[in-house]
């Protein structure tokens, strides 16, 4: 099975051969490295930029103005803050020009903790991004969804932010991407560049096929009736694992993989809460003005009388960063034990 980085690479290959992607670019995105997570290795349209985030976003917008279809990358979301005004511009072009121009671009950036990334390789960005109007925001939790979401993002005529949970980049999927070789060793020899000198290397792309995960469509990752957990990205596998543990205790938790942060799939969330009467939102972004608060507010608006207990948010502590020593990350970002404890508590709380 492809891992998440390979899935992104396969999707970009499909994008540049079938969906008109003209440019995949960013710092270290082109040869020889192909991205710090190798997610852009071997792509024919990949190129390296100066170390200049403002140039990257401005160039992407210009390419989109001129009829191209760019996929740009900011190497880590922690370094995206000096382009916020350009992101605002990308998001408001269609509205401010009354539809004269639109902005078909994809911006990829790795997010989240879990790799001992310290202060500037551990941030989350979805809550901040949700305040920049005019963007769609997606975040996969597995390789097949990454592939399907990225193809949908590429074809969308609006700017789409593709957030890649960096701790999952080397995680293999449970399902094959359509057209992916069944043997992962075969896939490795086909599309992973060799170590050392790779100047003569060319990938041998497998015949991957069209597969879409529609933007705005969540997935019920695990069905249950005792509690609704809404999560995404790196917290999804932790939540599913915790749900399986609780199932052995007779607590049947439903886990929803949001997949799209904005516009999020309220009907799926609402239907689940109407069934379970309980809601726990889990993510690793800091807790103040967290996107999960918006999810809870919408549920309060739409399904208040279905709630049996107060909804909760399990998120990162409101501290300035994720510290390098494991103790910092362990006690400021939700971990497996925190997820399990919160789910157990909310599922069993007296109504």
């Amino acid at each position, binding site marked *: 099975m492809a891992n998440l980085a390979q899935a992104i690479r396969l999707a970009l290959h499909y994008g540049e051969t079938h969906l008109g992607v*003209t*440019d995949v670019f960013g710092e270290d995105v082109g040869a020889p490295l192909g991205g710090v997570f190798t997610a852009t290795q071997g792509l024919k349209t990949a190129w390296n*930029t*100066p170390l*200049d985030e*403002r*140039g990257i*976003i*401005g*160039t*992407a*917008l*210009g*390419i*989109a*103005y*001129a*009829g*191209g*279809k*760019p996929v740009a990358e900011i190497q880590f979301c922690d370094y995206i803050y000096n382009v916020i*005004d*350009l992101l605002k*511009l990308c998001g408001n*072009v*269609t*509205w*401010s*020009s*009354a*539809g*004269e*121009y*639109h*902005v*078909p671009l994809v911006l990829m950036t790795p997010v989240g903790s879990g790799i001992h990334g310290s202060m500037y390789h551990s941030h989350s960005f979805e809550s901040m991004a949700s305040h920049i*109007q*005019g963007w769609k925001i997606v975040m996969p939790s597995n390789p097949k969804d990454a592939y399907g979401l990225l193809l949908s993002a590429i*074809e*969308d*005529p*609006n700017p789409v932010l593709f957030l890649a949970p960096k701790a999952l980049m080397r995680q293999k999927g449970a399902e094959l991407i359509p057209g992916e070789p069944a043997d992962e060793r075969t896939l490795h020899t086909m599309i992973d560049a060799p170590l050392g000198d790779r100047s003569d290397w060319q990938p041998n792309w497998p015949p991957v096929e069209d597969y879409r995960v529609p933007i705005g469509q969540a997935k019920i990752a695990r069905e249950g009736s005792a509690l609704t957990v809404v999560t995404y990205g790196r917290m999804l596998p932790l939540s599913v694992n915790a749900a399986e543990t609780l199932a052995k205790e007779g607590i049947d938790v439903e886990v929803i993989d949001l997949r799209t942060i904005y516009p999020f799939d309220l009907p799926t969330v609402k239907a689940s809460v109407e069934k379970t009467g309980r809601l726990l939102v889990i993510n690793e972004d800091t807790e103040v003005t967290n996107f999960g608060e918006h999810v809870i507010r919408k549920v309060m608006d739409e399904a208040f009388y279905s709630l049996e207990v107060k909804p909760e948010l399990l998120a990162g502590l409101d501290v300035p960063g994720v510290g390098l020593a494991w103790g910092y990350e362990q006690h400021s970002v939700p971990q497996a034990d925190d997820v399990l404890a919160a789910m157990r508590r909310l599922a069993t709380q007296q109504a």
Partner: protein
Amino acid sequence: MTATTWKAPKLTDTLKIAIHDKMVLGRATEELMIRMMRTGHGYFWIGGPGEEGFNVPLGLLTKKGHGPDFDYLHLHYRSSATVLAMGAEPINLLRQMRSTATDPYSKGRNFVNHFAIKAWNIVPVTPTIETQYTTVIGTALVQQRHGGDGLSYVTGGDAGSAEGDFWTCMNWSTRPGRELPVLILVAQNEFGISTPATQTQNNLRLNERANGFGIRNACVDGNDPIASWHAIAEAMDYVRHERKPFCLQANVSRLYGHSSSSGANRYDEPDCIGLYEQRLIRENLMTQAEIQAVWDKHNAQLSADLQKVAAEPMPGKEHVLQHVWHEGPAGN
């Protein structure tokens, strides 16, 4: 017109008179919009009266059209004379000034002189004073691959050149073997809102910053439309055919200050139109009566346009959610 047929028009006497006509049109439009701001026909004015001597030749020398065979324009908000010289209808500027629902550039959402005209490759003007120096890289990159003689030009003010995007533009357009057909334009009016340039710039020749990148550059008196014509034509010719960047500074006047925020009152600075009219008379190209007739013609038409615009609908609740998303296929 194709990618290989563009030639700058010859600067004939007829064209010199036409330049005057467009300069007057630009000034009369801006002065009417200032009056609109003062009489309740608009909330806020910002524009470029005083820059017509440079901006009109720029518009007339633009290879106008849609797609990479033609010039892409990344303008700032002092570019009304350029867009009017290209053939924009003055009434549409009045619509944007009044924020009507009929404003074709933003449907009443943006300040005046914030154009967006896809048919002419004019990408949306934004109130930021620097982002256009980065977006120009993208259109120029597409043109570099496409071939032909289309170029991308970007306009900005001297104050905005302090932003890093100005440097980004020069750096990205001079990567070895990846040079871009970008014409980098800076209007030096020696003010950033209220702050004099002498407090913020150690060298008022901002084009000389391009020397550090090996970019050919020049400085021209933007109050002289004839000198501006030749400087722009030379710069454009270089960019079109060498496919490399050029940086051109125009020293201009700022006749009505920064915007409404500084009162939009007339400043005592050289007036490019008055200077040009003296020259036209001196060279026996126009008489004073003919010059006055040009002013009267445009003012009369603008008055009629304003009467029409004043009766047009304003945006309402039904407009708010329009164009949040593009619903059609991708591709500009």
